[in-house]
């Protein structure tokens, strides 16, 4: 058994967790560590297994295999009420027949705390979410944002080692969602809680998380900081799912200190490092914002002439689709400033990009 699972600093650990529904694999081989104070997000499309993983950790669904450790204790098959974790449900699941105060007191009552202590803990929780004035109200008398905060207060009041949040902002409109993102992030920082968050919204994941666990088809695809995931995707799925990518097929033709790959059209691309044998096929991932339209005389590690097919103005950012002379159509994203604000179709341009902006994915790792 590895040490980390019983480490008190690791609030939550799963090992090789799986869930089958008949022949359908909902989750497979999920191993994850969540250290104290971290905000980790499970991100993925629907059906990727993120909600299954959350339900297994919460104890609301029994796993088919693997182990769950919570706060250094084995908890694989414990009932939810013995796990001591907090869950914020998608619809908040506030009890409609209890007041806000009674809702927050509920977990403390279940733990048989003395009445006086319950009162003071509830007040503290309400103050932490800055809503002491709604204590006597019923949940349906609160706005969506307030309900959200009360759901969070109800979890935090008993100081669980981990708080699970299942798309808690899914029901809110865009503006409130942005606001609540900041608020949850702020609460996380101030109170030092450990959070496992689920969302299918990549921007939300990027904005809030210390680390992101990207999931796809019931498997964990890649775990890393938002920065790593975005700029160093390890799989084609990761590259494709997060943000936009230009993806090119290429073969390694020159190695050494300056590796070069060549596309089937003969376009040569310099990259900063490529750990693969010569002649090996690979996928190249280049972000649209890593590409630039070069000014006359301006130089770059990689340069390719082409013709503008279409320019799309979307406000602060413009996007140009450029047909490379010896290659495919690539998407170039630039701030809408300066000379290339809008280009008529057919304009000849030069596209340039730095060698270290190219991610090389050996083909056998680009599963999917």
């Amino acid at each position: 058994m590895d040490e980390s699972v019983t480490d008190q600093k690791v609030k939550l650990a799963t090992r090789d967790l799986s869930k089958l529904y008949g022949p359908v694999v909902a989750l497979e081989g999920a191993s994850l560590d969540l250290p104290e104070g971290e905000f980790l997000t499970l991100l993925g499309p629907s059906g990727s297994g993120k909600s299954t993983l959350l339900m297994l950790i919460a104890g609301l669904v029994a796993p088919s295999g693997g182990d769950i450790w919570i706060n250094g204790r084995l908890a694989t098959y414990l009932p939810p009420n013995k796990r001591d974790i907090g869950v914020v449900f998608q619809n908040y699941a506030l009890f409609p027949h209890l007041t806000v105060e009674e809702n927050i007191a509920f977990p403390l009552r279940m733990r048989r705390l003395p009445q006086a202590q319950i009162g003071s803990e509830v007040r503290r929780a309400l103050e932490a979410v800055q809503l002491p004035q709604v204590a006597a109200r019923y949940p349906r008398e609160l706005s969506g944002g307030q309900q959200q905060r009360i759901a969070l207060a109800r979890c935090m009041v008993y100081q669980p080692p981990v708080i699970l949040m299942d798309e808690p902002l899914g029901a809110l409109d865009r503006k409130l969602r942005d606001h609540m993102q900041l608020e949850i992030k702020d609460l996380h920082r101030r109170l030092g809680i450990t959070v496992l968050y689920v969302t299918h919204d990549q921007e939300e994941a990027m904005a809030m998380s210390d680390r992101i666990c990207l999931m796809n088809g019931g498997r964990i695809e890649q775990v890393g900081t938002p920065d790593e995931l975005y700029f160093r995707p390890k799989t084609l799925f990761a590259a494709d799912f997060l943000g936009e990518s230009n993806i090119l097929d290429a073969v390694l033709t020159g190695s050494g200190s300056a590796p070069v790959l060549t596309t089937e059209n003969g376009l040569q691309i310099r990259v900063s490092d490529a750990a693969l044998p010569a002649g090996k096929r690979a996928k190249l991932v280049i972000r649209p914002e890593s590409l630039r339209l070069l000014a006359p005389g301006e130089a770059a590690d990689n340069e390719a002439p082409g013709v503008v097919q279409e320019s799309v103005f979307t406000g602060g950012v413009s996007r140009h689709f450029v047909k490379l002379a010896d290659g495919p159509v690539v998407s170039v994203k630039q701030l809408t400033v300066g000379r290339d604000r809008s280009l008529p179709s057919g304009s000849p341009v030069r596209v340039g990009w730095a060698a270290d902006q190219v991610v090389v994915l050996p083909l056998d790792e680009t599963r999917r």
Partner: protein
Amino acid sequence: MSGAPALPRMAPTRRPRTDSAWIKAWPIYPLVIFILVVFVYPVAQILWLSVLGPHDNLTLANYARIAHSMVFGLTLGITLKIALWTTILSLVAGYPVAYLLATARPRVRDILIILVLMPFWTSFLVRTFAWMILLGRNGPVNQALGGLGLIDQPLSMIFNFTGVMIGMVQAMMPLAVLTMLSVMQRIDTTLGKAAGTLGARGGQAFWRIYFPLSAPGVAAAGLLVFITAMGFFITPALLGGRHETMLAQIIISVVQELMDWRFAGALSVVLLAVSAIIFLLYDRVLGLSTMSGGDAAARSTSGARQGMLSRTGAAAGTHAVAGLGWVSDRVAEVFERLFPPRADRPRRAIGRIVLGVVAGLVIAYLCLPSLFVIPVSFTAGQFINFPPQGLSLRWYHTYLDSPIWVNATIRSFIVATGTGVLATLLGTAGAFVLVRQRLVGGAAILSLILAPLVLPRIILAVGLFYLYARIGLVGTALGLVLGHTVLAVPYVVITVMAVLRTYDERLDHAAMSLGASRWSTLRYITLPQIRGGIVAGFLFAFITSFDELTIALFVSGGSSSTLPRQMWNDLLLQVNPTLAAVSTVILVFVTVFILLAEALRRRGVTA
């Protein structure tokens, strides 16, 4: 003159005439008029008669007779006692079933709901007859208990309070289950999960979260069962003894033997008044919002309006539930100490298994007993016996060779078909108006249409008898059809309204934008899509009439008897295997009808 620029004067264009809401609501009028004439008028008449003396003078003499008679006071007491116990037992045994239905997977739920619905629709008389076979001194139940050595002497389970309870609870529980289910299905399932993650054990989560949220359903079910049970007479007459005579039975004998309308009217008023008092008491204690399914919280916020009674009731309820929570908690604690939850091994859902077994037994009690009429009907012997002696079709021959039985069967078919057609026409038109138009007083009209479901049937039956006696409708098929339609039309209205609510009206708008007139839209677009619901409504109406006894008891008789009426006569006089043969035919027939209606209704609602 104001400084506004003068607008060019235009000839007033003729505005298209906008029909007022009252004119547009015309399709509902036949139904409303029908209810007023065949329901409200006869009932009002019989109530009015109660205050008339021998010379049509106003008097309270009829009530004085009731007040002075020990018998009626006693009967009222018995009626209340039987209704109360029926209610309590139906709720206690029905709750687990409703809970299982509410939390089961949709496919399982569909099957279970049919099992609960079947006894609701299968003939009352058949079911009561089945109990007479089962519970008799030498019936299968006593035989089985004796065979197992559990009893030395046969238990007397019939012609006493036990028999009445067994029959009445079976009759009323489907109503209780369905009413509770409608509230339970609206309870968010994540609330229970949330309670679990917040540290509540199963029992705590149930008593503190689920049960309070389902309480409005329990309250509504209790009221419905109580009021319905108060008007019963079939079960106590056939399964009870002398000490289980209920108010409705007295009313029947007052009408049939004494022909004293005024006294019958006074008794009806008493029955109605007691129902009303129960209703009002209920409202004071539990609040009307429970009836409309509003959550308990809605009441507590309007604390100012609450009476003392209501607050006391609420407080008592809260404490009772908290107490039950405490008890289940202690039990769970002991259980957990004996079998601590293991982190390394899957849990077994013991609670769920227990629930399944309990609910399964209750559903078996609802469904299985009626089936006993089938083997009994094939006996070759002279008497009703279980197990049957030999195998023969002789009782089916007796049935089919008897002109009385054959005529009754034919008559029942004619009346039921007529009722089905009339109720479907009136009810469908009414349902359209109620769903599609925001009619002022729509809710009141709906209550009026549904009122026959709640009003003790016996009062309507006596009222219709009195009305028909004067206009010569007694003993006619038309009279029966009209009376049965009053009872059947609520089912048509409810079924068609349900289908219409899920119907996407934009389809009609699309049809009209494509050039279809209102009528073509109805004919080619709307009706084909809601056909299932309408046919289901027809089948429910048909069954309601086919199984109806109360009105038939007064309005038909002798050569004009319907099948239930004929069965009733035989059940009172001499129980014989012909009845089993008739019952089997009815059972098979009704089952096929109901399965068909359910299938159509579901397709209609989900399509």
